[in-house]
């Protein structure tokens, strides 16, 4: 499958995870990895499956590298009805009230333009015991097989 991993980050944790996911998937898929800051609202390609990896900052806001993208999507309102994506969040449960709000905002933004979310939004907790990749690899595998089915491809 053709996959693009898009990451939104501020201190680089999401970038590191995105690269780890890329290495993990590369043997079986054609995988690109891109910072959301380098992604235009009109750059989506329906033949690709999008894996979003995004942290949360401030008081539940998107991280710096995702903000221009979010603003562009909100302003340009691209038609994303042919686009399928899954999303993985990096957050910290110390920020109780706004835990993983960044990815939530991003998913809602994509959905508002008609994109279809595959699977549940999974969250890593920086204050929890798990390594992000231990949650993200099984997540990626699961959403890819679900997406393959939906997109009529071999996983």
């Amino acid at each position: 499958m053709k996959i693009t991993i898009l990451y939104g980050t501020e201190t680089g944790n999401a970038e590191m995870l995105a690269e780890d996911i890329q290495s993990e998937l590369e043997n079986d898929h054609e995988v690109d990895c891109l910072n959301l800051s380098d992604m235009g609202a009109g750059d989506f390609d329906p033949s690709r499956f999008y894996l979003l990896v995004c942290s949360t900052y401030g008081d539940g806001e998107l991280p710096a590298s995702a903000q221009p993208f979010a603003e562009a999507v909100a302003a340009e309102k691209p038609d994303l009805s042919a686009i399928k994506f899954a999303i993985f969040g990096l957050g910290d449960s110390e920020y109780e009230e706004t835990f993983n709000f960044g990815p939530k905002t991003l998913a809602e933004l994509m959905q508002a333009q008609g994109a279809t979310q595959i699977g549940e939004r999974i969250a890593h907790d920086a204050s929890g015991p798990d390594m992000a990749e231990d949650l993200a690899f099984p997540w990626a595998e699961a959403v890819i097989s679900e997406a393959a089915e939906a997109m009529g491809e071999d996983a």
Partner: protein
Amino acid sequence: MSTGKIAIVGAGPSGCFLAQSLLKAAPELEVDLIDRLPVPYGLVRYGVAADHQGTKAVARQFARVFDRQGAEFHGNVTLGADVTLEALQGAYDAVVLAAGLSNDRPLDVPGAALPGVWGAGLITRALYDHPDAGTLPDLGPRPLIVGNGNVAIDLLRLLAKQPEELEGSDLGPVATDWLTQSGIEEITITGRSPAAQAKFDTVMIKELAKLSGVTIHVEGAGSSEDAAEAKKIEAVLALNGHATGPRRVTFRFGLAPLAVEGDDHVTGMRFKTDAGEETLPCTSVLTAIGFCADGQLPRDALLARAQDIEAGVLAPGLYATGWFRRGPRGTIPENRADAQALASRILADLTPDPAKPGRAVLADLDARVDYAGWTRIDAHETATAPEGRVRAKIARREEMLRRAREEES
């Protein structure tokens, strides 16, 4: 084949992010991170609060810089004592100063030298088991915090916490006992500006609403038309009346320090207010008003002569980044952006000279700790963590050095 040799002085977030960016763009570079401590990561280890382990998780990225990207760690090497700047410049194609700012900016008012006045850096280093820290002082029952930045809030939160609220932190036994037995009855925190312009982040304030043993009063928070300012004021006001225990916490704003009062020890602090003057009695004064250079490196002179300080260029082949360049402002992400920009600049400037010896210039420093040495310290610290703690930091330099040298059995 090496495409150049770069020495980065300071293995804090700035130095590590810089090495990460450099090696990402040019994996063949020889990048050496030199730190005066036997352990890397700077203020991630010794500044970021013990009860903010999530923020410290950024160290996982930094570990990769050594593990996978091939940077070398040269710990326990002090620039200005063990090796000179000139020697480094002679040995490397580029030298970067990422040494941070470790001294507390002094409070510039009469009485600031009285016993009982302590800097936030001094206290946090002692709390977090920094090897060069002194012992934790007695603050008495009514400490007063001067400053309204995130560091001031960190201090307030730790002083206000009950022992069980420190679960999951890496606070050591000495600091834990000190906090548990502090006998603190009231903590006053004062800011020079109105709440609207306070430097702390709103999330830091919201976190205080979780404190389980305090009664919080907020005085004179004021109001603002500006949305961001109003949000900040709202967060502070939301704390007013939070009552979960007997330890009193009072927020005061618009108080400009005039003098520390007392004969042979702090007894109070006098401020200028809108209405005139006011003296708040207290048993100690904790200043959290910023940081400055420690004098080991001629920072002022270097910055004054800088070729392009905005770009981090001090002189040909000599650069600065992070707090050392920008001053004591900005969180970890800002250092990343700074370091990424500087990495591009260095790579553009770099003209490798194969005759430069690089890390051979450090070879005679026998007490150096390498990355493998740090991983032995790290493994020991995590393996010996007591119940309720994620790590048991080694506080003494000699013990760090001993652990670092110990071969794995």
